[in-house]
């Protein structure tokens, strides 16, 4: 079965989407690749893609992230060139999570024990708020 995967680089990674594309062009794998602003989209037989993804991840283990994609690259049902422009629905999730990737990369690269985080303040309970209002207004 042919599968499609996104390979997304953290903005702090030294690896560029073009580096990944060049590595794929020079590899033995029979896959198609599309370069994008946030990484590359690769499409091919499942076994080949799995092996390729391992090779790509080795370029920067903590800075490269992989995500499944349902539609093949350039599919007219999703390609914005055919739909009259605008981002496709799945882009917003990638865009939002991409902003967090540098933090996640640093966390993956760090061997240090996670620090204790103080519990965040919870909003005041309604009953307590009612009591305060009554006290203030009485």
């Amino acid at each position, binding site marked *: 079965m042919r599968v*499609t995967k996104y390979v997304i680089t953290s903005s702090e990674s030294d690896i560029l989407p073009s580096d990944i594309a060049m590595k794929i062009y020079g590899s033995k794998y029979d896959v198609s690749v599309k370069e994008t602003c946030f990484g590359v989209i690769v499409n091919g037989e499942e076994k080949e893609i799995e092996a390729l993804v391992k090779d790509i991840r080795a370029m920067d283990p903590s800075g490269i*992230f992989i*995500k499944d994609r349902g*539609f093949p690259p350039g599919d007219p049902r999703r390609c914005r060139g055919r739909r009259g422009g605008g981002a496709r629905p*799945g882009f917003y999730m990638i865009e939002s*999570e991409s902003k967090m990737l540098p933090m*996640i990369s640093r*966390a993956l690269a760090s061997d240090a*024990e*996670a620090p204790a985080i103080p519990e965040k303040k919870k909003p005041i309970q309604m009953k307590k708020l009612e009591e305060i209002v009554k006290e203030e207004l009485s």
Partner: protein
Amino acid sequence: MAKVIVYPPTSMILSDLVERMGHKALVVPEAVRTLVTAEGIESPPLNVTPEEPKKGLHYAAVDVPSGVRGRMALIGPLIEEAEAAIIVKDPGWLTGCAGCSRTNELVRLLIRTKGIPVLDLAYPTDDAEARVFVQNIKKFLEGLK
């Protein structure tokens, strides 16, 4: 290797971390791929056949909006397959197939009532939280068979 469903079901970070730790992430794009790349598409363009709403009816009643049933036709079978779950609370940017609040409530409910191990998290906002986020996921996944 355990099958782990992630919420949001289209999350790149969660599915990547699950696959990185040697488990199988159950995600919506896989379900979409099965439909849209099937040979001899029966119902173009997205191959949503009359069978899809029937699948959705397993999880939501007929008077529930069709969008919920349509989404459940994709996400419901993933929940049935799941052996563990990672849920991120209030992601705040859900769009597309993950953009329906009622479906999301139902998905979280079905995951919780299934009785599988569930890890609840919030997306990190700084480096310290990110380290805790990653280590919690690591510990949770290491504890799975």
